[in-house]
């Protein structure tokens, strides 16, 4: 059956090894979803349906569990995933101002990705680096003691890097 919507056609075979290992172990749905997100970068609808089919767990439950937890996402993320800490210490030290700076600079709000596919913003609860607050994490790098000015500089630098990479 084919459809005309923009839903993805994922390579489902990538998931077979995980499913073979976990499908029969009760209580493994979250682990399977985590592995799937590790493979695809997000959880496409066809992957969720495939998990339901192979594990015998109703699709409603698979979608229900996936949407319950904040770790799971249903859209691809940008090249740079900005995780902006909104923990108490960061809040007290000005994280809302940083969120606004990111919006002013990139035009994205929590959960959105820039049109060029470079940046995704995700607000997260406490990254646990409270003494460096306010903090954000971009891919694996943590940036601490931030100010709006520093955030603008970091974004500009990453943009430059991406442009250079693209040119090469």
């Amino acid at each position: 059956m084919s459809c005309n919507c923009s839903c993805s056609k994922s390579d489902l075979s990538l998931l077979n090894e995980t499913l073979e290992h976990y499908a029969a172990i009760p209580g493994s749905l979250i682990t399977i979803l985590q592995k799937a997100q590790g493979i695809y970068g997000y959880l496409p609808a066809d992957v969720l349906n495939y998990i339901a089919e192979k594990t015998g767990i109703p699709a409603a439950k698979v979608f229900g569990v996936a949407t319950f937890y904040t770790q799971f996402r249903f859209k691809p993320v940008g090249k740079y995933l900005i995780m902006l800490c909104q923990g108490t210490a960061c809040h007290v030290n000005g994280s809302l101002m940083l969120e606004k700076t990111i919006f002013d600079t990139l035009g994205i709000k929590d959960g959105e990705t820039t049109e060029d596919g470079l940046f995704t913003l995700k607000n997260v609860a406490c990254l646990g680096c409270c003494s460096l607050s306010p903090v954000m994490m971009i891919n694996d790098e943590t940036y601490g003691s931030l100010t709006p000015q520093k955030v603008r500089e970091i974004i500009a630098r990453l943009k430059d890097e991406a442009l250079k990479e693209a040119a090469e």
Partner: protein
Amino acid sequence: MITVKVGQGSCGISAGAGKVFNSLKNIIQEKNINANLSVTGCIGMCYLEPIVDIYNDETLTARLVRVSENDSESIAAYLTDGDVSKIENLLLSDEDRVFLDSQTRIALNGCGVINPEEIDDYIASGGYSALKRALIEMTPESVIEEIKISGLAGRGGAGFPTWFKWNAARSSQGEEKYLICNADEGDPGAFMDRAVIESNPHNLIEGMLIGAYAIGAKEAIVYVRAEYPLAIIRLERAIEQSKEKGIVGDNIFGTEFSCSFRIKAGAGAFVCGEETALIESLEGSRGMPRLKPPFPAQSGYWRKPSNINNVETFANVSWIIRNGGEEFAKLGTPDSKGTKVFAITGKIKRGGLVEVPMGKKLSDVIFDIGGGMKTDKSYKCVQLGGPSGGCIPADMQDTEIDYKKLSATGAIMGSGGMVVMDESTCMVGMARFFLDFTAKESCGKCTHCRIGTKRLLEILDRICKGEGKEGDIELLEETCNEIKAGALCGLGQTAPNPVLTTIKYYRDEYEAHINEKRCPARECIDLVKYTINEDKCIGCSLCSKKCPVGAISGEIKKKFTIDTAVCIKCGQCMDACRFGAVEKK
């Protein structure tokens, strides 16, 4: 033998400890220096990271702070010729030494000293001797009795006696029992559990195995937040090493006791810190709490008797078995025994992890250890217990750290997040911040929490925007009390605490927002305006250049003004002005 230890907990690494480690590694190799380079966890002085400790055999000879990769040359020089002048500027100051010297470390024992990636380091420091003693010399009942004597209570927040839970699980019928560790540390501002796992994972494993022996469990599970990747890696490694040594698995220390051990990574849901929600999540479902009773001790994971304790609780267990319950009970107050770990953050000068005996005053922690405010503004309050807790104002800073005394203020001990605030923090905004969190994290199962937190948030939103109405405070209080009485689980029942405590102690701030449309802390963006102080402005035009919306006008060398109708209150002018002429009113 000289050993150089680089503190590599999460905060050390984010401050650059990895780079420091690599540059030291290179230079030690290059110059052929006779010194071991090793990894250690978090000593708790997060504000001084990256930290490098230099040991001569077992003796600490130098503790270097705020080290950068550029310092490796001078450190190498010190290592070769012992010339202290090379590293003088990096040495821990006497003032900062107080931070560590004022603590009593039981749960954090070994953190920042031993290598969390090497089981032999843990064993050499006396590790696993408590487990051996429990298994060989003690019955499960006498282990529970020892914990009872110690007075250890749950460190995750509720403060329930640990022995009672263990005893209930032990007494439950059934062969199959589970011991679960709650490492789903979700309170924003709390990171002690992460530090324990990253810095001394074997201490957690030992405490859990003793607990498993006491209740009769054959399987132990740690439920860790997925946001703690380093903690998961270190714990996995520790479990592997324990298996190789025969400490985890069948017939531990040659006894009849067998216990397997595994990790389950959470997927990001604050409510999973509630024990029955955590069990649902372990079973692969949405993390929604169950109705209690039955309690997990009767019917928990896969409906079998289960016992759940927090990381810090388990981290105390091996010390208690090694030193005896009575020693532990000597510390603290009549109601609260032992020590408590706090994560102090916010507007504090020396932020990090602190372990103090119960009975210390809040002011001891905030001022003597934390060094007071890092800003020039005065101390306003401390927020304890995260979204389930409350704010304790400055005039109650002599309150003792004790479960009952803290609860009497309207806050709770909680898991130990201690966020210090100065007068620039708006208390209505603070309540709004926490309700925004709980409303998002409410699982949706019960009406009181799902809808109640949302309504509270709407009212607080309105007040912060200057659209508060007369009667809003009473409406907040009424809604709070309804939620407390009606919510299914701890998350909902405690969600109103931040609102109730701020109303209790800072009612005047609520009234100023509602009646005068004014934010006394000048934090609520809709209620402040930026102006330029004519006396201070020298007409440099920097603010006007920075303004993204062209709201600032004026002539060079004359006074500039802000058009408040155009101003978007981004604050860039204030950051830019070098003369403090831009003011927030």
